[in-house]
């Protein structure tokens, strides 16, 4: 792999926000495509960050800075990605569930999805099941992605799945969930389609859903 991409990965891992624009421009000047920079530089960097966070080796401030670093690079890449890709990969409705105001993880997932070429409709935080239902009706997304940080609020994900069923919309979308207390077992129990352990994994899953 090229040195430039390694440098970009490392900048993301170490959260060096200020280095991101320069490194990104260098990479583009060296002839790398926006997609290469994203897939082989930024994403692998965030993979490492996600794994270290899970192990308790990185904490929220560091993850935030890594995300900010990636965002700084994405701001440069986005127009180029749009030019090259032309068509959006698909549409995802994202939100933090009812009673939960923690949006760091949800925002991170939103950023990764956008980076992967998805159109993201962000419903924000404290999103009630009926709001998810309304958004599915209005936006007709391919995927609904829900986030929760608390064991007290994660149950609301199940309520959203039920609300979508009752509205006759369950089969119109794929549902994926994530957040600190969420597990694959829980996803199966509430009838979601999948669980993503971190933001890069969420973007990967979303890609699989739309290509299937």
């Amino acid at each position, binding site marked *: 792999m090229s040195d430039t991409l390694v440098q970009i990965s490392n900048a993301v891992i170490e959260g060096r926000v200020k280095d991101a624009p320069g490194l990104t421009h260098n990479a583009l000047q060296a002839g790398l495509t926006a997609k290469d920079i994203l897939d082989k530089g930024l994403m692998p960097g965030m993979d490492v960050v996600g794994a270290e966070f899970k192990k308790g080796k990185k904490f929220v401030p560091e993850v935030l800075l890594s995300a900010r670093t990636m965002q700084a690079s994405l701001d440069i890449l986005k127009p180029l990605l749009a030019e090259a890709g032309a068509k959006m990969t698909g549409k995802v409705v994202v939100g933090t569930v009812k009673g939960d105001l923690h949006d760091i993880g949800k925002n991170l997932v939103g950023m990764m999805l956008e980076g992967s070429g998805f159109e993201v409709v962000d419903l924000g935080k404290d999103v009630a099941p009926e709001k998810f239902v309304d958004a599915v009706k209005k936006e007709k997304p391919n995927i609904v992605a829900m986030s929760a940080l608390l064991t007290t609020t994660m149950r609301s994900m199940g309520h959203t799945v039920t609300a979508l069923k009752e509205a006759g919309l369950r089969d119109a979308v794929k549902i994926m969930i994530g957040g*600190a207390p969420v597990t694959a077992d829980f996803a199966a129990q509430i009838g979601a389609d999948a669980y993503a352990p971190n933001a890069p994994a969420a973007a990967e899953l979303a890609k699989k859903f739309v290509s299937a």
Partner: protein
Amino acid sequence: MPLYILACRVLQTIMEPYLRAADTLATFMEYGFHRTPQLMTPALQEELDKVAEPSVFIIGYGLCGNGLAGLKARQHTLIVPRADDCISLLLGSYERYIQEFSEEPGTYYLTKGWLESGSHPLKEYRELLEKYDQETADWILDEQYRNYKRIVFVASSEEERESYRHKAKEAADFCVERWGFRYEERVGTNEFVDKLMTVAREFTESNDDFLVIPPGGEIKQEMYWR
């Protein structure tokens, strides 16, 4: 059967009177495991596994972001409060916690334990300023706390409320000024902890407020669902 207490230090003051009365062996673990639940489970398992003789362990923890999920009883019996976090234990009941939660989901709680050696936004801000430049520190802090609406100091008694109000206010004033939080105070009751430390060890099966994990069993997230 021997009795042991394995609890978070946040509950130490409220549990100590019971320990003195009964001469029970207790281990209080460091604060802050709820922020890294994946490290909490092995740390607690190690403590349980140190005791070879089948014993009753009273666990002074909430589910704490799944920090207790996966904890194995092995040869012991575990008595566990059925609460998502320690705030239920400090307020006095699960119902009171839910009442507070419904009133304002975006609540940041302060307790004596956290004020003494834990963390809070003001302390974190000071630490961030040591590590990062002003703009970065501001941004990191705001990203984490801007959505909260209220900061509540939960004291376990009127005396505690009076003696820790100064510290609580210092942390709260910072949040009130920065993000417009409301500051409130609550005096909890020792009802939940009292049951945990007295009658709960006699329970043979789980009920509304406590989980009983028999030898060979394991704590699971769904045991907390109501």
